[in-house]
């Protein structure tokens, strides 16, 4: 049994996993450039509709308000591919590091 020494050695070692949702939340390591939940800066938007054309999962719908065309984001459909952030000419869309995106109702996932 050539794996036995490894098994015996690991009896006294610390575990490889973390008790994520209950303890050790600060141990979750996220690198720079992690693709998390989307954030939208409405004041920067110019309504060009490029994000609407780049989105693969129909997360973005264009609506018309007093300023002209503006996007509405349905985050429950978002796959976090970052293509909207990439095409945005005014950097009005940003992907944050937030990955805990659980809500009690669908309405709170809509960003205007």
């Amino acid at each position, binding site marked *: *049994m*050539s*794996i036995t020494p*490894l*098994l015996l050695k690991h009896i006294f070692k610390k575990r*490889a996993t973390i008790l994520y949702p209950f303890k050790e939340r600060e141990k979750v*390591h996220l*690198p720079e*450039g*992690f*693709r998390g939940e989307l954030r939208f800066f409405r004041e920067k938007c110019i309504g060009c509709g490029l994000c609407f*054309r*780049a*989105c*693969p*999962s129909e997360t973005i719908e264009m609506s018309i308000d007093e300023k002209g065309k503006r996007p509405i984001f349905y985050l429950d459909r978002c*796959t*976090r*591919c*970052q*293509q909207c952030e*990439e095409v945005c000419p005014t950097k009005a869309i940003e992907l944050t590091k937030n990955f805990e995106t659980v809500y009690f109702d669908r309405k709170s996932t809509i960003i205007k």
Partner: protein
Amino acid sequence: MSIKIPIGPQHPALKEPENFTFTLDGEYVVKVEARIGYMHKGIEKLMESKNYIQNIPLVERICGICNVAHTICYTQNVEYLYEKPIPRRAEFIRVIIEELNRIHSHLLWIGIAAHLVGFDSFFMYTWRDREVVMDLVELLTGNRVSTALMTIGGVRRDIDDDKAYKLRKGLDILEERTKYYKKIAEDEKSLLVRLRDIGRLTPAEAIKHSAVGPTIRASKIKVDVRADDPYAAHDEVPFNVITYDTCDVFGRLMVRIDETLESINMVRYCLDHMPSGPIRIRLPNAPPPGESVSRVEAPRGEDIHYVKSNGTDKPYRYKVRAPTLGNLSALIEMLTSKGDYLVHVADIPVVLGGIDPCMCCMDRSAKFIDPIKGKEWSLTWEQLKLYAKRKWEKEGIKAKCR
């Protein structure tokens, strides 16, 4: 007397949803029938309604584990339509991510193979060390599995010195661990007993059934798209095509372990010899009319994509041949007893797992076959609804379908 047992789509022994009917003579399997199409996703049709940029994340979801192979295949297929070369640095970054993806996929499979033969401690240690490569992929691309790094005309993120340093450190750990696993796989008696002479596929059978990837390479045949038809930076990056002559599941395990070591060296070579320069070029939204085919060596074998463009910003036709479809008829050959080669019922899971199946990638829609008259036909959605309505009305149940 023979007994027929159906296994799947949902079954504890199968890790993938697919239906197989095994005909048994006592304890031995004498005939296997595969019925594909349970997880047909309709991705090819959906791609015709989206533009080329929107299709990249969709292609990524054909297969979760070998997503990089599919996205490289798709993006270079569309780039062939433009007939413009992409920057050399982007090609090197593509090779790096592809090989990291191969390491992660092979380590995953080694764990699964150990789990299928009941060697769970080996499974847990390989999966723990797989986290190292997952973290490296997350560092380079922003996500553990869905990389979303490829785009038409290059790649979306660059690798700077800091990331390259972390990558090298991670690769050192992976190399040490993989060498240790190779030693265990060669010495461990329980693995050898369960994997030796199981799932036999002779070289002649492998060619006849056109197996792909590690399955055919374990049958001593040198087939690898990276060497035969180099794409991206593979024309420059040196590597050995690994073959084994054991023709069984043990050979497939060893091919995958050795390929992991080769991939680690390839990533190191790419980091050393990567030229500087831009990482992407901008291309117009609509490619010129035409058609093209692209081939990529995915972790499971050869992946083929076909595209036909009619000059608009959406593909006119897109076709995907995922590697598992190439291995399926060889799998049926491996599972059938013939002569002195006998397949026990207990060996079914490990032989099925031996090809590293990804059934959902390759499932396609059904065709109607009449074996007596020798006729084949297919029905449209309207015809199918009418057929269902008539059938249920005949049985006295009011049709619920609209």
